[in-house]
C-alpha cells in the first residue's frame, strides 16, 4: 500500500511537467483525462418519476429477434404487464420481453423514431398512461427465493426483460453460462468513466445493498466464489456505501484510477484481474463475468420482488440546463419531456445526445424514447465545430488508444478506402471510445472513420457471402438440371422398351407400327372415335407399365389400380366392338368377371358421350391423331365421370389421374404409344377372330 501511495505522490509531482504520467497508474494502455462535469447532475437528489403524455416502446430492442404485441390494441394494461411475445414467423424464438412501464391504454403500434444514430423509424407500442400507476405486484410470479442454478436464474432474467444496462444492451440471460462453475470471478462495473453521467454513481449511493445482494444471488446461482466491484476513485461516497454493503460477504471493493475509458469491459477487467482479454475471445472464456451496477440492481428486483425492468436511472445533464438531475425514468419516456423538466436555459431547438459526450450520438429527433440502454441525456447547446486539419502523424492517438490499436494507420487506410488493410489492423477491436478523436490536435473525427470502415467491411463480407451462396446455388441448379435430363432420358428409354415388349408378342414391331398408322388413317369416324378412347385407356396402362419396369423412379402400381386399369382396358375394347376373348387376353387377372361387368357399365357411359365427339374431323397424320385422341379422351372422361355410377368409381379414379398428373407433353407421348399398342392388339384379335 505504501509503495502505491509513493507512486501516486511521485506521479502527482511528475504530472506537473508531464501530465501523461498519470497513465503509469493503471494497467491498460492510453486513456485520457477529460473534465468530468459530474457535479452538474450530482447537486440535485434523485427526482420523482415523471409520467409523460405518451410512452413509446420500440418493439425491437438493440439486439434480438423481432417481437410482436400480445395484448389487443386499445386494451387497458397495468404497470409491469407483459406486452410482447415472439413474432409469428418464429414462434419458438426467445425474445427479451417488454413490460408496461405504467398503467394505461395501448393506443397503437406505429412507426416511431428510435434512439439510433441513423434516425430511422421502427415499429413501437404507443402507451397512453392513465397516471394512476396501477401495478401488478410480483408480475414475474417469483417465489422470492434466490435461484440455485443457472437455469432458474436465466429463466427469471429472460422473463424480466433485463438487458445489459451499461450500453451494449446484450440480453443478460444470454450472457450467462449454461452450467455452474464456469466462472471464477464475478465483476461489478461501477467505473462510470464518461463525463456528465452520474446515474451509476447515484444508484450505488442509494441502492448499494440491492447491487451487492443482486451480485451475490448471481454468484450463488452460478457457483462463483469471488466478487470484485470496481469503482473509480472520483466517487468517494459510492465507495463508502458499497464497502459497507460488502462487509461480511464474498464481495470486495477495488478502487480504480479515474481515467477514461476505465468503464470499458476489457479495460476494467484488465485493471481488476490483470487479465487482458485476447482478440476474438470473450471474458466468459477466461472465467470472468461482468455486469453494470444497474443490471445487478435490476436482477435483485426481479428475483426478490418479481419486478420486470420497466424503468432505469437516467442522468439528464448538460450546459443547456439550469437544474440537471437524475431520475428513475420509465422506459419509453420521450427525451424532450425529460429535458424540459430540467429547466433548459433556452428553448431546446438543437438535437439532444443519448449517452455521454465521448461515445454518445446525436438523436435525429428529440421525441425519441428512453430505452433500456439509455443512461444519459445530454443537453449541450451546439458549439461551432472545429475544422478538420490534415493528419500530422504526431502519434497522440496511438498513445491514447486503450485497445493498443494504431488509430493513425487505421485512419490513413480508412481515408483511402483500403478497408481490407483497416481490417488487418484489427479495427473490429476498436471500442469506439473516442480517445483518439479527443486527443487529435488536427480535430480529425477518427472514430467516425472507424465506424464507417466497420460498416463497409461488414457490407463487403455480406456481399462476399451472398456471392458465394449464389455461386453455390447456381452450380447446384446446373447439376440438378443435368441430373433431371438424365433421369428423363432414362425414363423415356424405359418407356419405349416397355412399349416394345408389350407390342412384340402378337406381332413383330414393324407390323405394329404399320397397323397403327393404318388405323389412324382410317376415315371411318366410328373407328377413329374408338381409337381415341382406347388410346386414352392405354395411356393409363403405359404409365403403369413404365412404373413397373422402372421401379427406382416410380413406385410399382398398387393392385387395386391395376385392376382398374384392366377394367378400363376392357371397357375400351368393348366399345370398339371388337370381340375380345377374355381368356386369351394375357393381362386379364382372375377377377375378370367382376371387372368385365364394371367395364361394360363404363363403356355404356362412354358411348353416350362419345357420340358428341365422333363428328370431329380425323387427321391423317398419326401424331396429330394421337394428340387429338388424348384430348378427346380427356373430354370424354370428364363426361363419363358425370354419368358413371358408383360401381365404376374405381375405374374412374385411374382414368382421371393421368390427365391431372401428366403435363401435356407426357400425355401426348403416352397416347401415341398407346395407340400403337392398341393397334397391335387389334391385329392380334383379328387374327384370332379369323
Amino acid at each position, binding site marked *: 500500500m505504501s509503495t502505491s501511495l509513493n507512486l501516486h505522490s511521485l506521479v502527482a509531482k511528475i504530472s506537473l511537467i508531464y501530465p501523461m504520467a498519470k497513465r503509469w497508474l493503471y494497467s491498460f494502455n492510453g486513456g485520457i483525462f477529460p473534465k468530468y462535469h459530474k457535479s452538474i447532475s450530482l447537486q440535485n437528489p434523485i427526482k420523482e418519476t415523471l409520467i409523460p403524455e405518451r410512452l413509446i416502446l420500440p418493439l425491437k430492442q438493440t439486439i434480438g429477434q423481432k417481437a410482436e404485441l400480445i395484448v389487443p390494441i386499445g386494451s387497458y394494461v397495468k404497470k409491469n404487464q407483459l406486452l410482447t411475445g415472439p413474432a409469428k414467423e418464429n414462434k419458438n424464438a426467445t425474445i427479451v420481453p417488454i413490460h408496461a412501464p405504467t398503467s394505461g391504454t395501448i393506443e397503437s403500434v406505429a412507426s416511431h423514431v428510435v434512439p439510433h444514430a441513423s434516425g430511422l423509424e421502427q415499429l413501437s407500442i404507443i402507451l397512453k398512461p392513465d397516471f394512476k400507476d396501477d401495478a401488478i405486484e410480483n408480475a414475474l410470479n417469483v417465489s422470492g427465493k434466490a435461484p440455485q442454478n443457472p437455469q432458474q436464474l436465466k429463466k427469471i432474467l429472460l422473463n424480466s426483460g433485463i438487458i445489459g444496462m451499461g450500453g451494449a444492451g446484450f440480453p443478460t440471460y444470454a450472457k450467462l453460462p449454461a452450467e455452474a462453475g464456469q466462472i471464477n470471478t464475478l465483476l461489478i462495473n461501477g467505473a462510470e468513466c464518461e463525463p456528465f453521467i452520474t446515474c451509476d454513481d447515484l444508484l450505488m449511493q442509494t441502492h448499494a445493498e440491492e447491487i451487492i445482494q443482486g451480485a451475490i444471488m448471481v454468484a450463488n446461482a452460478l457457483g462463483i466464489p469471488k466478487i470484485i466491484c470496481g469503482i473509480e476513485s472520483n466517487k468517494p461516497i459510492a465507495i463508502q456505501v458499497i464497502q459497507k454493503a460488502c462487509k461480511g460477504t464474498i464481495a470486495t471493493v477495488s478502487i480504480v484510477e479515474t481515467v477514461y475509458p476505465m468503464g470499458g469491459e476489457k479495460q476494467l477487467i484488465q485493471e481488476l484481474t490483470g487479465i487482458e482479454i485476447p482478440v476474438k475471445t470473450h471474458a466468459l472464456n477466461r472465467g470472468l463475468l461482468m455486469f453494470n451496477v444497474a443490471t445487478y440492481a435490476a436482477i435483485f428486483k426481479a428475483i426478490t420482488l418479481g419486478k420486470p425492468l420497466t424503468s432505469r436511472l437516467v442522468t439528464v445533464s448538460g450546459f443547456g440546463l439550469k437544474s440537471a438531475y437524475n431520475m428513475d425514468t420509465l422506459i419509453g419516456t420521450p427525451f424532450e419531456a425529460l429535458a424540459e423538466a430540467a429547466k433548459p436555459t433556452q428553448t431546446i431547438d438543437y438535437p439532444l445526445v443519448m449517452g455521454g459526450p465521448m461515445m454518445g450520438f446525436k438523436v435525429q429527433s428529440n421525441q425519441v424514447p428512453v430505452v433500456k440502454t439509455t443512461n444519459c441525456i445530454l443537453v449541450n447547446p451546439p458549439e461551432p465545430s472545429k475544422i478538420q486539419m*490534415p493528419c500530422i502523424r504526431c502519434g497522440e492517438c496511438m498513445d491514447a488508444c486503450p485497445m493498443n490499436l494504431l488509430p493513425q494507420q487505421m485512419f*490513413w*487506410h480508412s*481515408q*483511402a478506402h*483500403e478497408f481490407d488493410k483497416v481490417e488487418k489492423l484489427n479495427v473490429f477491436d476498436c471500442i469506439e471510445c473516442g480517445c483518439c478523436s479527443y486527443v487529435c490536435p488536427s480535430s480529425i473525427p477518427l472514430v467516425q472513420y472507424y465506424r464507417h470502415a466497420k460498416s463497409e467491411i461488414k457490407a463487403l463480407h455480406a456481399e462476399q457471402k451472398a456471392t458465394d451462396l449464389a455461386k453455390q446455388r447456381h452450380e447446384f441448379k446446373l447439376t440438378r438440371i443435368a441430373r433431371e435430363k438424365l433421369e428423363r432420358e432414362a425414363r423415356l428409354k424405359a418407356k419405349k422398351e416397355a412399349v416394345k415388349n408389350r407390342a412384340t408378342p402378337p406381332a413383330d414391331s414393324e407390323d405394329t407400327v404399320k397397323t397403327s398408322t393404318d388405323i389412324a388413317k382410317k376415315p371411318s369416324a366410328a373407328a377413329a372415335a374408338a381409337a381415341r378412347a382406347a388410346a386414352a385407356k392405354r395411356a393409363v396402362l403405359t404409365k403403369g407399365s413404365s412404373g413397373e419396369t422402372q421401379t427406382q423412379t416410380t413406385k410399382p402400381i398398387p393392385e387395386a389400380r391395376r385392376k382398374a386399369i384392366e377394367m378400363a382396358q376392357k371397357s375400351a375394347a368393348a366399345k370398339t366392338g371388337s370381340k375380345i376373348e377374355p381368356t386369351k387376353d394375357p393381362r386379364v387377372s382372375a377377377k375378370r368377371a367382376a371387372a368385365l361387368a364394371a367395364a361394360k357399365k363404363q363403356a355404356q357411359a362412354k358411348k353416350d358421350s362419345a357420340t358428341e365427339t365422333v363428328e370431329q374431323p380425323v387427321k391423317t397424320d398419326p401424331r396429330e391423331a394421337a394428340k387429338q385422341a388424348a384430348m378427346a379422351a380427356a373430354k370424354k372422361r370428364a363426361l363419363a365421370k358425370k354419368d358413371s355410377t358408383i360401381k365404376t368409381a374405381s375405374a374412374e379414379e385411374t382414368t382421371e389421374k393421368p390427365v391431372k398428373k401428366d403435363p401435356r407433353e407426357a400425355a401426348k407421348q403416352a397416347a401415341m404409344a398407346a395407340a400403337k399398342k392398341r393397334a397391335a392388339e387389334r391385329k392380334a384379335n383379328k387374327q384370332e377372330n379369323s
Partner: protein
Amino acid sequence: MQEYVMILVSTVLVNNFVLVKFLGLCPFMGVSKKTNAALGMGLATTFVLTLSSVLSYIIYSYLLQPFGLEYLQTIAFILAIAAVVGFTEMAIHKTSPALYQVLGIYLPLITTNCAVLGVALLNVGEKNNFIESAVFGFGASIGFTLVMVLFASLRERIDVADVPAPFKGAPIALITAGLMSMAFMGFGGMAH
C-alpha cells in the same frame, strides 16, 4: 567466410542493384504499386537470380572458357536464364499453386529483367568462383526484394497522400526513387 558476408552486405546494401547500379528499373517502377505484388516479384526474382547465376557460372567456366567462346557469353546466359525461368514457373505452378497465384504474371517478366543478366555478366567480370557467384546472385536478389518492398510501401502511402497535382502519379514516384537512391548511397561509406 568473411568474404561471403562482405559480398552479401555489398550486394544487398552498398552496391544495391536497383538504387546504386540502376539495374532492373523496369520492375522497380512497374511492379511497385502494391506491396504484395512487389514482394512476390522480389521472391520470384530471388529464386531465379540465384539459380541462373550458378548456372551461368557453370556454363561459362565449363563450356565457354575451355573452347574460347567467351564472346558468346551473353547469348548463352540469356538461354540459361530463359530456361530457368520457364522451368521455375512450371515447377512452382505444380508444387505450390498458392505461391504461383501470388507471383502470377511476374514470373515470366523476370526473363527480361536486366539485373538477372547483369549479375551473370558481373560474376564473370569479377572472376567469382562457384560459391561466390551463388552468394553474389543471392545477395543481389535480396537487395532487389528489399528495395522493391520498401518502395512499394512508400508508394502505397503516397497514393493516398495529398500530393500536389502536377506531381501525382509517376513524377512523385520518381522523386521518391531518387531520394531512396540517395539514401542508399549512404551505405557507400560502410565499405572501404
